[in-house]
């Protein structure tokens, strides 16, 4: 029989402890002609509609007075139903829960509702999935799926064990993580580290189908959460450090059979580039650029893996996702722009045909995988509501890109960068700083940001109430020396010795509230450790995130709040997962987060790496040598609610 051990190792909550204000820069009032105020003011001009007047004044006065007009793409962001069926919450990837029982004034009363131990002690990056009365948790390798009954206090109902190949543990670059399952039409879809996709019945936990689409003997693993839309399950491969060739595959949700597969390198027919491909910038036009922007044959082992987030616009029927770094890291082995790595693809979901592409880091020098989330928003650009995607790029620029065309409207730095000097909006190209480019046979020092970027995979959240994007990210720099890497299938293909450390100011993490319309930060919270957890925004104007030493924090979402800490609690292990919020069977709002430190930044704890070697874990260990003294391995779900 199974024993579910509950050990709430909670330090007492310390409400309002260490309240901090950091760098408050309120949005300029003069730009306040937003869609919401616009509409309200137009109605208000007609004096007969008194009811609307009341409604509008209530709506517009406190929030819209500063609201920038950004809102999630309506078709991709359905109304709140109290569930959390995919890690990104909706196709627009807002990670926003409309539930508002937990507010800025009562969040300090949050109490533990229940806990659940996953019995796994590797890095937990997955988001809990909530459907009806059930919650589903996916664990790191060996990728178990737990089903918990929320109407019975979170009791385990079944566990699915897919038994992935143990050898896959040695192929995964950065801990044996998994980023979660997705629910659709009565089924759960998830991936295993050894490259298999599973569909299981959400009620019974029985397998519906499985399809092995990755090959670990080539260095391919799968860590991402699938996105299911229009009857397709979208999954890509990981292994950008192993000389794999990146791809995104679409499987039929009913049968698991391959519908299409789009490679990130190689000839146009493999990349699914056809007549409908209309990139905005000239550098992305031409035949077979996925071959010609590489040395001979290098595209076959050139990376461009797809292991991050996918968004979907049901109106345009387009998916948006980013491609990973080119291989090897040593850029001198691959002269050229290395298409189509480190960029964003827009594709037709039915056929996989590419519509546009934008390359954030042509000829990537620093492992700047472009796989971060794209938040689909409609917001005013030059006074006109425009469908855009907003993405905090790994290279440190906050991109605002037209969803229809791929045109970049703005790309402002949201962290400290000295290896690049802005993005030229006319050509779309990022300007590289020559002195910071790694060269064989020497060590370049103080490159900012690091290979892990200003922000890695951990996703941000967008609140339609404040119009702000909440970005958990890093502030680190590195020394890098590159050398010629040899390709041996199934082994690392990197060619770099790296050593990372804290960036200017000495803090390694930052939580930024970013105004995507005005393209600037509203407030920032400095964190000692790099942030590796996702963010959660809620209708009560409270945002949540976790730190790698196990603090789970609630922050005032408002621009005026300046990043005020409202509540925090210390949990048993560091947090690198994605917090979620849902309405329980009793009608109350819950906030759930999984602990379990690990991942690239936390492998020093979860894999017990030796800090005497500063290059360990691709140089990350040097920056994290204090972590083993601040947290321990874990893997527990914590669920909080207000007292009844």
């Amino acid at each position, binding site marked *: *029989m199974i024993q579910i051990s509950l050990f709430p190792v909670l330090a007492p909550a310390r409400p309002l402890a260490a309240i901090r204000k950091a760098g408050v820069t309120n949005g300029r009032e003069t730009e306040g002609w937003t869609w919401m105020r616009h509409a309200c003011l137009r109605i208000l001009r007609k004096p007969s509609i008194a009811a609307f007047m009341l409604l509008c004044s209530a709506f517009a006065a406190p929030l819209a007075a500063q609201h920038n007009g950004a809102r999630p793409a309506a078709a991709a962001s359905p109304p709140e139903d109290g569930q959390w069926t995919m890690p990104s919450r909706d196709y627009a990837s807002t990670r926003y829960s409309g539930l508002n029982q937990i507010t800025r004034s009562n969040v300090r009363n949050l109490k533990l509702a229940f806990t659940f131990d*996953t019995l796994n002690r590797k890095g937990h990056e997955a988001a809990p999935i909530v459907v009806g009365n059930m919650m589903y948790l996916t664990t790191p390798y060996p990728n178990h799926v737990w089903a918990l009954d929320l109407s019975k206090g979170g009791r385990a109902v*079944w566990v699915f*064990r897919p038994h992935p190949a143990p050898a896959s543990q*040695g192929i995964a670059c950065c801990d044996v993580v998994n980023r979660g399952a997705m629910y659709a039409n009565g089924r759960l879809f998830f991936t295993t580290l050894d490259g298999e996709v599973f569909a299981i019945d959400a009620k019974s936990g029985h397998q519906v189908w499985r399809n092995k689409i990755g090959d670990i003997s080539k260095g391919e693993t799968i860590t991402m959460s699938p996105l299911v839309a229009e009857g397709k399950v979208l999954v890509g491969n990981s292994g950008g450090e192993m000389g794999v060739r990146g791809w995104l595959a679409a499987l039929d949700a009913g049968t698991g059979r391959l519908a299409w597969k789009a490679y990130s390198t190689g000839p146009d027919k493999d990349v699914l580039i056809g007549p409908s491909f209309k990139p905005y910038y000239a550098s992305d036009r031409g035949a077979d650029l996925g071959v010609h922007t590489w040395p001979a044959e290098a595209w076959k082992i050139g990376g461009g893996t797809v292991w991050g987030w996918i968004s979907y616009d049901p109106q345009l029927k387009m998916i948006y996702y980013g491609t990973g770094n080119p291989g090897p890291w040593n850029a001198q082995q691959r002269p050229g722009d290395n298409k189509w790595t480190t960029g964003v693809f827009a594709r037709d979901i039915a056929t996989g045909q590419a519509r546009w592409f934008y390359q954030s880091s042509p000829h990537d020098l620093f492992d700047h995988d472009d796989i971060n989330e794209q938040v689909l928003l409609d917001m005013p650009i030059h006074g006109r509501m425009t469908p855009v995607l907003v993405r905090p790029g790994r290279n440190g620029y906050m991109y605002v890109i037209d969803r229809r065309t791929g045109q970049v409207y703005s790309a402002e730095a949201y962290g400290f960068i000295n290896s690049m000097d802005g993005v030229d909006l006319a050509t779309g190209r990022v300007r590289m700083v020559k002195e910071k480019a790694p060269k064989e046979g020497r060590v370049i020092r103080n490159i900012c940001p690091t290979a892990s970027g200003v922000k890695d995979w951990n996703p941000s959240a967008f609140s339609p109430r404040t119009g702000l994007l909440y970005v958990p990210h890093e502030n680190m720099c590195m020394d890098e020396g590159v050398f010629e890497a040899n390709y041996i299938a*199934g082994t690392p*293909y990197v060619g770099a010795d790296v050593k990372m450390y804290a960036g200017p100011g000495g803090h390694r993490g930052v939580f930024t509230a970013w105004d995507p319309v005005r393209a600037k930060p509203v407030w920032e919270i400095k964190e000692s450790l790099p942030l590796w957890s996702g963010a959660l925004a809620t209708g009560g104007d409270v945002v949540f995130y976790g730190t790698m030493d196990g603090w789970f924090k609630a922050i005032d979402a408002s621009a005026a709040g300046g990043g005020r800490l409202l509540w925090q609690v210390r949990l048993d292990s560091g947090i690198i997962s994605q917090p979620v919020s849902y309405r329980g069977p009793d009608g109350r709002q819950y906030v759930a987060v999984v602990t379990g430190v690990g991942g690239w930044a936390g492998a020093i704890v979860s894999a017990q*790496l030796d800090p005497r070697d*500063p290059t*360990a874990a691709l140089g990350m260990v040097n920056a994290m040598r204090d972590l083993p003294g601040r947290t321990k391995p874990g893997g527990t779900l914590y669920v909080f609610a207000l007292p009844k």
Partner: protein
Amino acid sequence: MSSPFRNSFLPRALPSLHAGRGRGWVRLSKRRFASLAHPPLAPPLQGGGFIALAFLLALAGCDREQRDMNGQPKAETAAFVPRGDPRSAEYENNAFHIAQGQKWFGWFNCSGCHFHGGGGMGPPLMDDQWRYGGRMEDIVASILYGRPNGMPDWRNKITEQQAWELAAYVKSLSAHPRQDALSARADEMSNTEPQTLQERQKVVPETKAQPSGEEN
């Protein structure tokens, strides 16, 4: 710098990376009893004897359902290279072999997983923990035959001599060989301390394997 795989872009399969896999779901809400297989009944066992046997089998069936959810993975200690190999002493304290091993360690991408001893994808090699044994023969066995949790096998890809030289270098990462054999300078460019300045790590053979997630 010339290297053995310089221009070989064609993927080479590592044949041993696949392992067996099992089946999926386990229902937890009901206690599941293993169905009792009917053994062929010998004549003297009919009647009272049969009932007693059935009772015992039923009890045994209950026992089989015990699941040790917090089970420790077993350390893999099967050595393919017999202990007491004379090459062990020859290579371990030889400066030339250690230096050669350091070269192979970079060329064959060992450093891509283990870095310069601190570990990453693979476990650290500079500490005193040895999942599969810390003797020269154990290390050579790990290199040549691979290990089930991700260490590829290098048989037929490198020579046996290279394997012994690699093992000598691996042992030097924990500063185990004689001081005058250790390298005072790392091949790698900037970041690690010379082994001659490191404290010698005690070798604990066959350390209990570190739990790698939950696997029963």
